[in-house]
């Protein structure tokens, strides 16, 4: 049964919320196939982070199921979710600031006992993110925002996860660094990891993603191949902030964020 599944991660009909407040997610379903970047877009407060918290076990859903590579892992807490192959990179900065880059990355392998496997993995992430190797002995808190993000990516990849959950990796970064970070996201996919990405920076994220989903009122409203979503004029107006006039730019770094006035 386990290897039969078409998807590495499935969130099925999830309902979730905080305390006694109203539900944030109301019957959300998302599926992530292998070697694919799935991007969930939606405005601030739509519940994007909540989706990832449910997926990584930080927040238990009220109902629905979480399936990783065919195995039902609903109810597993975040400390144990790694074993099932899920890694979560939090929104904002989450490096251990007063530790070196080396300590940060090696903590990513906290649950791994085999030193040889760790060494191989260190070489792998240093190759994927050169800056990590270059700044190996420096304090992580002293790096720039974009460099810290790459350290967080490297840390999350130490366990060779099947799926990486990325929460707004471009938040607080300038356009050039954002382009660099999305380039790294594509490299993670090409190295064989499936990615579930959530972003407010919708247009830029959809340019990197393979599949796009629009989150609205706690469920996935529209989903489809990312280029189609980008090209859909109605969608552009509603959710992506402006018309898709720049879609020819795919892969390049858009110097300006899309603005409403155009």
């Amino acid at each position: 049964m386990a290897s039969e599944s078409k998807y590495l991660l499935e969130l099925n009909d999830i309902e979730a919320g905080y305390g006694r407040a109203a539900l944030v997610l109301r019957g959300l379903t998302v599926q992530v196939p292998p070697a694919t970047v799935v991007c969930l877009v939606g405005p601030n407060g739509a519940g994007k982070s909540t989706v990832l918290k449910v997926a990584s076990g930080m927040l238990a859903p009220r109902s629905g199921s979480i399936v990783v590579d065919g195995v039902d892992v609903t109810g597993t807490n975040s400390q144990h979710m790694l074993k099932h192959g899920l890694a979560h990179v939090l929104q904002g900065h989450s490096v251990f600031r007063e530790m070196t880059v080396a300590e940060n990355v090696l903590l990513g392998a906290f649950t791994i006992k085999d030193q040889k496997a760790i060494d191989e993995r260190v070489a792998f992430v240093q190759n994927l993110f050169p800056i990590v190797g270059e700044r190996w002995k420096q304090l992580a808190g002293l790096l720039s925002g974009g460099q810290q993000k790459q350290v967080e990516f490297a840390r999350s990849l130490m366990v060779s996860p099947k799926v990486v959950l990325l929460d707004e990796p471009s938040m607080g970064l300038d356009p050039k660094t954002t382009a660099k970070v999305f380039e790294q996201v594509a490299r993670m996919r090409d190295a064989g990891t499936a990615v579930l990405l959530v972003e407010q920076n919708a247009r830029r994220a959809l340019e990197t993603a393979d599949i796009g989903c629009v989150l609205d009122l706690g469920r996935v409203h529209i989903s489809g191949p990312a280029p189609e979503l980008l090209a859909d004029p109605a969608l552009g107006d509603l959710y992506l902030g402006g018309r898709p006039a720049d879609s020819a730019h795919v892969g390049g770094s858009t110097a300006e964020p899309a603005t409403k006035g155009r």
Partner: protein
Amino acid sequence: MSGSLLLQSVILGVLLGGLYALLAAGLTLYFGIMRVVMIAHSAFLILAAYLAWWFNRETGLDPMLSLVVTVPVFFLAGFLMQRLLVSRLKPLTLTMMSVLLTFAIALIIEGALGFIFTGTQRRIQLPYAGDSLNVFGAQVPVVKLVAFVLAAFALLSLYLLLKYTRFGRALRATIQHPEAARLVGIDTDRTAGYGFGLGLATAAIGGTALSLDATIYPSLHWHWIGPLMAIIVVGGLGSIPGAAIAAMLLGISQSLLQLPLGATWAQTVFYVALFATLMFRPQGFFGGRLAQRF
């Protein structure tokens, strides 16, 4: 004032600073782990001093041997205290409520000591109590030197443990970013409990060091908690190196000020330093980027 008297004051200040540094390290550790203000830290210090005194009276052996029992017992007590009491406090008001909770624990310890050992002042009589070393004309009591070595050794062990062991890395990660720590597979609840255990273990060692050379009584802990709190604020809340540096500087200042001002007024150096810190640099002077503002 003669040069050798000055030298003697500096040396005594360093020796006292070592004990302050160890105790402040424990206090700042609790704060770093979960923003807990641990008023009972010095009560545990005096409890350990009493246990050392009692052990010496009953067995006639060196009081430092009591560490074999008190260190593991205090570690366990700290672990249980965190798991069963502190972690049950609501996160939103945790810092404030931790003051009430640990204040109550301090009162309980003080009351129990008074009940069991009475309020009489106690002092260990060591065979080497009267010995002193002559260092360039300064007289340095051997007991104070032994107490310092004990404290310094404990502080160094704590540092090495935090810096180079798997547990130390887990504890620092838990302090610096609990959510991210959980996401790399660290059991942050248990790690925080062990961190508390470590804090109380330092109180056990500090108390034993104190017992070698101090007259103790149940309410003595009030005398200690003020200076220790001042030290960790001056050093930058949550920073162990910061606490150690501040402890040394303030210990030496206190010792030097005793010459012109006498013991009572010299104590005010802690509060002057505390007010100056709150006024000019609320994040503390030696804590680096991690230190919390009060």
